[in-house]
């Protein structure tokens, strides 16, 4: 009994740490949605492409890991820029659903490009934190998970300051609330779109760099996996709410790790989807979203 309780706590710790990653993907989707009122299903592939591009200096020139990190971030930003250009910029206004199609197309395109380039072979990704867990009382803390949590906290604080305290953040909130007013006051919507893409892609690349370490080996399927996690998080958290995305990401992490431990690997995603359906049925507006009008 006591042992079960310890297990639950241990898996909750793991889940919270890993959930910080889900929260960040959810925040990315929330920022896209806030500024553009559209979904970017190519967000997962953008992060994945950043991670794979980070492998190039590593495999070609045995570059140090900070170079890999910079390449991950820069690579994600470049791919994000391409996604914005190809899937959003020239679409006519008012076609709210068109980016669902263009970004699904992009998801497949990026994922398959990586499959072709890597011959679908998994690539080993070094873990700079080693595999020695920290012992805290009766619990084990994986250092790579801890790094995800800490970087998540840092990013959330930085994003909070950016959104609440800077002119850029105010412009972002103004567009989210009323694009016409924002324009009238001098905000360039197209420039804000590009900056939002740069910001979310950089965030994705930086987090992806850490998350890739927890995988051990990379395979292109993580692209759609990350997109799906992001969508689950924004549904659970409530569309358009950053605090909602944070809570939902952490909750999803905890639920997945309990499932993983007590039920087995196969149940991890099943429980995540059960959680998603529970919210869709019982609380469609999510944890912090406004009830649909």
């Amino acid at each position, binding site marked *: 009994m006591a042992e079960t309780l310890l297990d639950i706590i241990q898996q909750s710790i793991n889940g919270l740490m890993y959930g910080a990653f889900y929260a960040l993907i959810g925040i990315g989707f929330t920022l896209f949605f806030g500024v553009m009122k559209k979904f970017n299903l190519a967000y997962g592939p953008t992060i994945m492409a950043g991670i794979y591009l980070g492998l190039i200096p590593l495999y070609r020139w045995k570059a140090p890991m900070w170079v890999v990190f910079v390449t991950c971030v820069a690579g994600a930003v470049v791919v994000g820029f391409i996604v914005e250009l190809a899937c959003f910029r020239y679409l006519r206004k008012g076609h709210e659903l068109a980016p669902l199609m263009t970004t699904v197309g992009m998801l497949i395109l990026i994922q398959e490009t990586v499959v072709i380039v890597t011959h679908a072979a998994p690539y080993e990704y070094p873990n700079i934190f080693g595999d020695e867990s920290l012992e805290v009382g009766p619990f084990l803390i994986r250092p790579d998970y801890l790094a995800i949590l800490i970087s998540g906290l840092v990013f959330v604080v930085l994003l909070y300051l950016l959104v609440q305290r800077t002119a850029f953040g105010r412009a972002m909130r103004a567009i989210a*609330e009323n694009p*016409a007013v924002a*324009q009238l006051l*001098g905000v360039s919507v197209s420039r804000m779109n590009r900056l939002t893409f740069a910001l979310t892609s950089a965030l994705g690349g930086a987090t992806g760099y850490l998350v890739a370490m927890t995988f051990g080996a990379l395979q292109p399927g993580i692209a759609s996996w990350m997109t799906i996690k992001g969508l689950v998080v924004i549904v659970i958290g409530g569309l358009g709410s950053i605090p909602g995305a944070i809570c939902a990401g952490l909750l999803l992490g905890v639920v997945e790790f309990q499932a993983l431990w007590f039920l087995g690997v196969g149940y991890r995603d099943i429980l995540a989807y059960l959680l998603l359906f529970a919210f869709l049925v019982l609380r469609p507006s999510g944890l912090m979203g406004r009830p649909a009008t």
Partner: protein
Amino acid sequence: MLEVRDLEIRYGSVVAVDGISLDVKEGEIVCLIGPNGVGKTTTLLSIAGLVRPASGKIKFFERHLVHLRPEKIVRLGIGLVPEGRWILGEMTVHENLLMGAYSRKADRATIAGDIERVCETFPILRQRSGQLAGTLSGGEQQMLAIARALMARPRLLLMDEPSLGLAPLIIEEIFRVIKELHARGTTILLVEQNAHQALQIAHRAYVMEVGRIILSGPAAELREHALLKKAYLGVRARQPS
């Protein structure tokens, strides 16, 4: 200063503005009056760049505005106080004012000074500074909308029915402020249904009727015009032959 020529604006197949021309000279208060749905708002929105005209010219100090985006136009010195206020309800009053200065490249101290100045004009905004703008009363929201437009230091201020839905005392206040802004050097193009009061403070006026301008001239003359006297009483004016 502002020159509008043969402006035509359509929403789909509906012609909202059907070839109007008007001028605003520096230092004037010009008002545009007319009954509901004749295209007054549409005209202002197209000057501000939010609605693209089908044809015609809009010139501001010899600059053509028709193909410019709204964010460019505000930087040229045209501010709009939109109909229905359009304040940012989920941001504080202070943040709304900061957004008003978004288009300017000014340092914090200058902007803080400007906020101080608009708060002198509207002392209530100072009291409400940290409050969410959506929780303000209608009159307070209107004052915020005007104050926010002023934060961009416009040379030409377009005002769309600033007195709409407000109590008589607040309307007095708003008109007092318009006169004060004008005295401090802002040129104003005012859209009003409150023709009586608008004609008191304006130098010149244009009267619109379904997409066209049917009358124009010095405000003092229009005040005495038979057609307008009828319009005050709610009788629709007929096209003069």
